[in-house]
């Protein structure tokens, strides 16, 4: 049923997806979550990981998902220097493709690298994070978790707080949330809010307490600790003072659930009490990540069978 509405070789980002394509993935993930057993959707195929940035959570999650679908998994940590040139990365891809790799799960520190590669390979590319551009499966699992908890995303008020400027999670979430009818506020110091963000149809705030009023969910972004060396934040404790999520701040928004893409800097962007509190969905997100990634891989797998 869902296969009909998915017609893409790759998953590059949520910006290019329609609401119904996103819902197709989320609906498929519901089924994978309820019967998280072995499937043979990808048996006989091979998925390779090319990561130029460290990752434990996203990579393991993808790996579990690919194995549960019966795929062979090939892991690479590619030194970022050898991935610098778009052309040499394309060479790497084509070589692996010649060995029979069907799926590439890619993470790259530079925005847009997958977009340049995708038209030049018959293999399917799945974006596991490119620069500050997109991290679609993280946003999909955030959407899935919110939809499961709140039944629908339509009309929800979602606050994304933190380093919006450098965050691919924020960008993918903004695209996905807007398409599914949520209202989005991004919140953080001016130095970490990118220019013209309001033109994406979101509100921008520099006051977390005000932003949280009436919020149904808050997605807390990880703060890279080196931002203080760039004068983008004044100090970690000063940042926590203004933008750290605490139970006291959350008290102003009854029923507001807490998301975080991980890994958490406790005491920097979120207090331990808030991270581990009754409204936290952080571990639920991790669990849902596998189902969402299985959904993505199997939909693309069905596309590949139809277009073989």
């Amino acid at each position, binding site marked *: 049923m869902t296969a009909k509405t998915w017609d893409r070789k790759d998953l590059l980002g949520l910006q290019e997806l329609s609401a119904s394509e996103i819902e197709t993935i989320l609906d498929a993930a519901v089924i994978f979550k309820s019967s998280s057993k072995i499937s043979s959707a990808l048996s006989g195929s091979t998925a390779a990981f090319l990561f130029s940035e460290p990752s434990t959570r996203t990579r393991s999650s993808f790996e579990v998902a690919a194995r549960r679908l019966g795929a062979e998994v090939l892991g690479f940590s590619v030194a970022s220097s050898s991935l610098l040139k778009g052309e040499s990365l394309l060479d790497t891809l084509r070589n692996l493709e010649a060995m029979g790799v069907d799926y590439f799960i890619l993470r790259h520190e530079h925005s847009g690298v997958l*977009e*340049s590669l995708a038209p030049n390979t018959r293999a399917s590319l799945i974006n596991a994070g490119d620069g500050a551009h997109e991290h679609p499966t993280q946003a999909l699992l955030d959407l899935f978790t919110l939809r499961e908890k709140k039944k629908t995303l339509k009309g929800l008020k979602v606050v994304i707080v933190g380093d919006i400027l450098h965050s691919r999670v924020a960008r993918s979430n903004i695209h996905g949330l807007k398409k599914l009818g949520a209202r989005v506020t991004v919140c953080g110091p001016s130095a970490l809010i990118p*220019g013209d963000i309001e033109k994406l149809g979101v509100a921008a705030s520099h006051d977390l307490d005000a932003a949280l009023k009436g919020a149904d969910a808050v997605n807390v972004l990880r703060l890279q600790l080196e931002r203080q060396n760039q004068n983008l934040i004044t100090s970690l404790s000063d940042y926590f003072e203004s933008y750290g999520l605490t139970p006291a701040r959350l008290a102003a928004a009854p029923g507001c659930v807490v998301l975080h893409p991980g890994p958490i800097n406790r005491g920097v962007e979120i207090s331990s009490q808030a991270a581990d509190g009754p409204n936290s969905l952080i571990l639920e997100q991790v669990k849902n990540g596998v189902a969402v990634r299985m959904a993505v891989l199997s939909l693309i797998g069905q596309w590949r069978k139809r277009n073989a």
Partner: protein
Amino acid sequence: MPKRGGTGLLIRGGLVIDPAQKLEAVRDILLEDGKVKEIGVNLSARTALRAVQCLDAAQTWVVPGLIDMHVHLREPGRQSDETIATGALAAARGGITTVLAMPNTEPPVDNPSSVHFIKAKAASEAVVNVLIAGAATVGQKGERLTEFSRMASAGISAVTDDGRPLLNSELMRRALEYARDCGLPLIDHCEDENLSAGAPVNEGLAATVKGLRGIPWASETVMVLRDIALAELTGAHVHIAHISAAQSVAAVRLAKKRGLPVTAEATPHHFSLCDADIKGYNADFKMNPPLRGENDQEAVLAGLADGTIDAIATDHAPHGPGEKALAMALAPFGVIGLETSLALALTKLVERKILNRRQLVERMSAGPAKILGLKNKGHLKPGADGDITIIDPGVSWKVEAPFASKSRNSPFIGMKLNGRARAAIVGGRVVHAL
């Protein structure tokens, strides 16, 4: 098209546009010994018996040779991207008869010997006039001034550290003072590199959506404002290279109103495109200054229309395909422009009535000639250099490889343009003809 003949060249029956003579009428032009000899009606009757080469220019515009005062020829040092010879061929194909070569070669043109080297190379290999800009600081490091007087004697036409700004304001002041003493314009690439560091595109929606760092408009404008203050302080002529931000255009407009010795140029890409036009992560749309917002593009157009911007200059910056295949954040800045400049001006400015024909000639020939103090270029009075561009305004064509340039990093590939150079004549000699 041209017939072989003697030392003379007769260009017959074209619409001659020469702002210096307030001329916009069908005329014949006779060139002799590399100079303009005479302009008149039906000169062929009187020259029939002499050995002259004839060029039929009916249905075309005949204008003073176009001058592009911002060109990177890459030689010496990066001949795989461009050479003096290929850059000159690209210019000729674009109807440009004189280029000002920027000094950021490897090594930079920062001493009289380097100036002589470029001059000698150009004299033997270039089909167009190659003027030379000397570096303002040794090695373009922004530390010690170069020998302005000796480079002036060697024949430079301007001083600039282009590619880099003169960040140190005290150094900029001294550079302006020496430039004034030598009678040279100082061309500044206005960029506060602290504000722009590490960013490949303009700050705004396009950068935000693509997840790329943004260069704020203010990184240009703070330096434009500083340069205007220093021009007022020193009385020296400062020329703002590749102006791109609305606020910079406003600053120059005000400075001119106050009578300060400030001039400016704009590139075809800044008047033709804005950051919303960047195709994906295609690094052929990456240049410095970056494609700005739509309001900035409109301000550049308005500045060209009202004369705040004196010149159209390409910032022709060839880069080989390997360099431009890098991720957007890593690829070098710069696009080629010599072969599309005139056609973009015709299509985006004249056709849309931003500029009339006379103003086109002012921005592409008379204006840069005046900035560079070229008495015998930018007009067609008798005795002027025999540099002429013949424009076919009616022809439609599509920008595509092959280019005469060694590089093909153009954001305009695939674009349909109207009008192009039918011929380029340099010193009385036809160097390009379609």
